[in-house]
């Protein structure tokens, strides 16, 4: 057990845990950030995606000790921001949400994409979402959702 500090959704936090504990478990269990989902536990599905120092990562593959001192943003840290609202509304309009289990991770991937590329093409969107698996939608309406977010949010990213 060790006291480990990092910045979570803009606030400095301190967690007492084994540094090898998965960041995913720390976020879900210790920090009650249940917007972060576990879909596979092996970095395949993207349901646990968070931003670490501004880039998209899978929190199931990061031990807490490797996140020490870093800045972590979960769906809880985005959803009430203008960007988060824009993505959520766009997903709603497009019909991008079905069972919803992958969707918070999709929101994180969308934010990461639009941060790098304000007006992505369909191919770029599909590439950016390729690590976020969805079994319900066949991706078409999620791609549409990202396009709508990019259009509506052109001044946000």
């Amino acid at each position, binding site marked *: 057990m060790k006291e480990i500090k990092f910045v979570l959704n803009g606030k400095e936090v301190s967690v007492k845990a*084994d*540094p*090898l*504990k*998965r960041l995913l*478990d720390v976020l879900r*269990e210790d920090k009650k950030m249940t917007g972060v989902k*576990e879909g596979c*536990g*092996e*970095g*395949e599905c*993207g349901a646990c*995606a968070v931003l*670490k120092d501004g*880039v*998209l*990562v*899978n929190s*199931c*593959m*990061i*031990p807490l*000790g*490797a996140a*020490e*001192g*870093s800045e972590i943003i979960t769906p809880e840290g985005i959803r009430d921001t203008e960007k988060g609202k824009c993505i959520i509304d766009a997903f709603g309009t497009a019909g991008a949400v079905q069972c919803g289990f992958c969707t918070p991770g999709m929101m994180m*991937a969308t934010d*990461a994409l639009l941060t790098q590329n304000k007006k992505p093409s369909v191919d770029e969107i599909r*590439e*950016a979402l*390729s*690590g*976020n*698996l969805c079994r319900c939608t066949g991706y078409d309406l999620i791609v549409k959702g990202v396009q709508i977010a990019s259009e509506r949010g052109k001044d946000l990213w």
Partner: protein
Amino acid sequence: MVDSYRPKDLKDALRIRGEYGSTPLAGGTDLMVRYQSWAGTLPLFTNSVMFVGHLHELKYIKKIENSLEVGGTATLSMVADHPDTPRVLRDAVLSIAAPALRNNATLTGNICNASPAGDSVCALYALDALIRLEKNGSSRELPVVEFITGPGRTLLGKDELVTAITIPLKNSSIDNFTKVGTRRANALSKLSFTGIADYKNGRIDSIALTFGAVGPTVVRSVELEKKLLGLSRAELKAGKESILSDYSTVIVPIDDQRSTAVYRKKVALNLLDKFINEVADYE
């Protein structure tokens, strides 16, 4: 439960490595899967762990004369984004998993995982990459083909860390990396192929042919490549069947949950066939 360390800098890391022989963990994308346990419990590491992903001294990529030096904790995304990264390596790196994983995984990790299906390794074999190993007080450099000795096995000493990968930049005229995965993206390799070649005065001056996931390590035969050096386009074309037949003796894949031995071998030879044609037809 095992101990873990977070060194403050490289020097500290080398000290810890020397003292405890802790397993270095950079991105964690291989290790955390290998030691995965029940969700909510600790991963089943058997050795102490040292976090190294944060070591900024090693998080760099730079061009030094005719080489690209990739720092020991540089991520795959950094490798893919660098303008001087050779095309086969860029293609190989971009064929690994998806953006979120590449943002975290390191080139060093992909090498030290020493999987015969490691996509970047297939390209690094062809590029004659050198692995720099450091320990407290000394360092050495090994070609990647020597560094990796078997599936999951390397010559990394218990007290050493990989601090850099040096890739000679050759500006080759003909190159190709092809990955055959289990799907079109975010896939593991059924097999992979890298070919690099160049002519001088109408004759093959340099050639490298490597195959991933068709043997216990990435396959590269310097001996067979030597037979190709000095060939003209016409000679290469004429000798194609014999080259393929030579290579069919060194490509010895297995059946597993991702593909079959027969398929792996056939496709590896198809890709070689295609590459030889490209080389022979190169103007």
